[in-house]
């Protein structure tokens, strides 16, 4: 075990996979000499050369689209999109192309591309850099959508993503890059997709979250503990595939749930989680499942981002309501 920040865990995992498999390569904007705007690939071009760590022209659709082709040629590309918001420029290459190559070819081809992209607010970034748009991608059959919240999970899930034959959108929490630290296994370490993680035990209510909202949920749980409410925190980790059975199990135990995410409420992935909960555990529910999300507005300029992002107060009051409902 080594204590690492999120970004260190990601960098070392990429390096480990490059060392493991000569087919692995990385492409993206500014990932070479600069090492990426967040240094996820720092030092890697010097170590592995310009053919393995490739600075691409500024065109997201061709980063993803050429990664599809590289993958068809037998290589295993990791594509970095500088900020998730700019994955929208590549949307037509991700959704109707990358995600369905296996299906379209009825299994003749697979495109195991891993797309990495940071997102999430609270870091005073310019427009479009912070937007939590994961639910733009969760309705896409064939695409796995993975959002780690801790360095260890980042390693375990990124390893699985890179080794998977399937395309993965791997969304990294910008705010956690340097802030979130934790112990990371030194050896080969992979975590299967579709298994939620219980981040904190609790018996009165289950808080569902992913990415940076996990730390928010943990803070809220801490605060709730002081008023005698025992909140379980569940990190979904992979939104697609979703751990349907795990969700049923945890909700059945507490009977109450709150889903927390940074994206706006309407049609955020929280809606899928709520629907799944009520499909799987309706008769265990003692109160409606609450959603704590950003309001239905675009991510604002930095001066008021704190008004936009869900905070501990909002989580705590939602939980209080859910817990007191009968």
């Amino acid at each position: 075990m080594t204590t690492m920040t999120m970004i260190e865990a990601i960098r070392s995992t990429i390096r480990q996979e490059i060392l493991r498999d000569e087919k692995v390569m990385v492409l993206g904007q500014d990932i070479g000499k600069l090492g990426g705007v967040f240094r996820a690939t720092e030092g890697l071009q010097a170590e592995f050369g310009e053919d393995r760590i490739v600075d691409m022209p500024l065109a997201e659709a061709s980063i993803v689209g050429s990664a599809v082709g590289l993958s068809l040629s037998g290589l295993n590309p990791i594509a970095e999109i500088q900020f998730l918001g700019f994955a929208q420029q590549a949307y037509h290459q991700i959704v109707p192309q990358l995600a369905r190559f296996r299906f379209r070819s009825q299994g003749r081809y697979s495109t195991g591309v891993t797309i990495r992209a940071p997102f999430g607010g609270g870091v005073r970034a310019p427009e479009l850099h912070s937007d939590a748009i994961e639910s733009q991608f969760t309705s896409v059959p064939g695409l796995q959508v993975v959002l780690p919240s801790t360095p260890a999970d980042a390693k375990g899930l990124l390893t699985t993503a890179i080794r998977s034959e399937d395309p993965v959108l791997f969304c990294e929490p910008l705010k956690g890059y340097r802030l979130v630290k934790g112990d990371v296994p030194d050896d080969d370490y992979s975590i299967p997709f579709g298994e939620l993680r219980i981040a904190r035990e609790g018996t009165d209510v289950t808080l569902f979250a992913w990415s940076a909202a996990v730390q928010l949920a943990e803070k809220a749980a801490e605060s709730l503990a002081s008023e005698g409410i025992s909140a379980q925190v569940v990190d979904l980790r992979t939104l697609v595939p979703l751990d349907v059975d795990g969700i049923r199990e945890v909700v059945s135990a507490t009977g109450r749930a709150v889903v927390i995410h940074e994206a706006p409420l309407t049609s955020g992935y929280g809606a899928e989680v709520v629907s799944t909960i009520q499909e799987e555990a309706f008769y265990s529910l003692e109160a409606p499942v609450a959603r704590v999300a950003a309001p239905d507005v675009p991510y604002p300029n930095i001066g008021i981002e704190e008004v936009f992002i869900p905070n501990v107060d909002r989580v705590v009051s939602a939980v209080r309501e859910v817990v007191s409902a009968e």
Partner: protein
Amino acid sequence: MLRREILRPDGSISGDSGPVLSIQETLDALERMLLSKRIDERAFSLQRQGRMGTYSAVRGQEASVVGSSLALDPSVDWIVPQYRELPALLRHGLSIEGFLSYWKGNSEAARIPDGVKVLPPQIGLAAQLPHAVGLAWGLQLQGDPGAVMTFIGDGGSSEGDFHESLNLAGVMKAPVVFLLQNNGWAISTPRSKQSAADTFASRGEGYGVPSILVDGNDLFAVSAAAREAVGRAKSGEGPTLIESQTYRLGAHNTADDPSKYVDSGEKLQWEELDPIPRVISYLRARDAITDAEIDDIEARNEAEVARAVDVLDTIGPASAETLFDHVSSTMSIRLRRQRDQILKGASR
């Protein structure tokens, strides 16, 4: 930009060009062109009878498609198609019934056979181009001797993917040939409304990609251009953009009604430039083909198409299972349950 022309509409050879293909190769190409035409006719009538879905004919573009494919070695080179390149795909190893199965609606039967270096048809226009670039670049990185030829239309060339792909191919010196078939139309949209550029070939310079403008109804000129381009790709000199100026002599597809928008005078002019008769005239002038031999070719093609259609007729819809089997390498719990429920309902 000078347009390269070798085989004149009357079947004579222009200026100082020698013939590009041997007589035998030319005969072989003619057979492929005639086969393509025959399949087009048959597919249209199958569609009219409800035995086929939407189908897009190659008619008019046979020299462009067959000629360019002749530069490829199916054992190492790849084709990344759009949807209007049937005879190139056949030469590369697809079967007629395999190709037609796709348009009939059975993707399982249309699965590209292992070893055939072809990607599935692409409906999202120009979306295939970055795949072609990545594939070519990847082959090069791995020391694979193959080159990639990808096809795109005059219409599709307006998509952003065209730009990003040519630019990337230029930067990476990827061994890829962009075969832009300018057939005058994107459904009902004429070339003149697609771009104010004089030629699409003129776009190459802006990417540092050499380009060639060629009479797309001229089997020899297209073949020569494609050979040059494939040669450049294989010698590490990078991509080429070829604009092949041809004409869609039929409807856009079986759902289209060109009488609404095609000027019959223009069409008539292009019928004069039909790529098939000029190959026949060329061969005739050299006494390399007789009417009887043409009949033989047609008969062979006819028999081959009949055989393929017989097989096709036995191909029903894919099994319901194929809806679930190839979404991902492993089936999620949720999908497995959806599958079980639907298959239970379907088999009731």
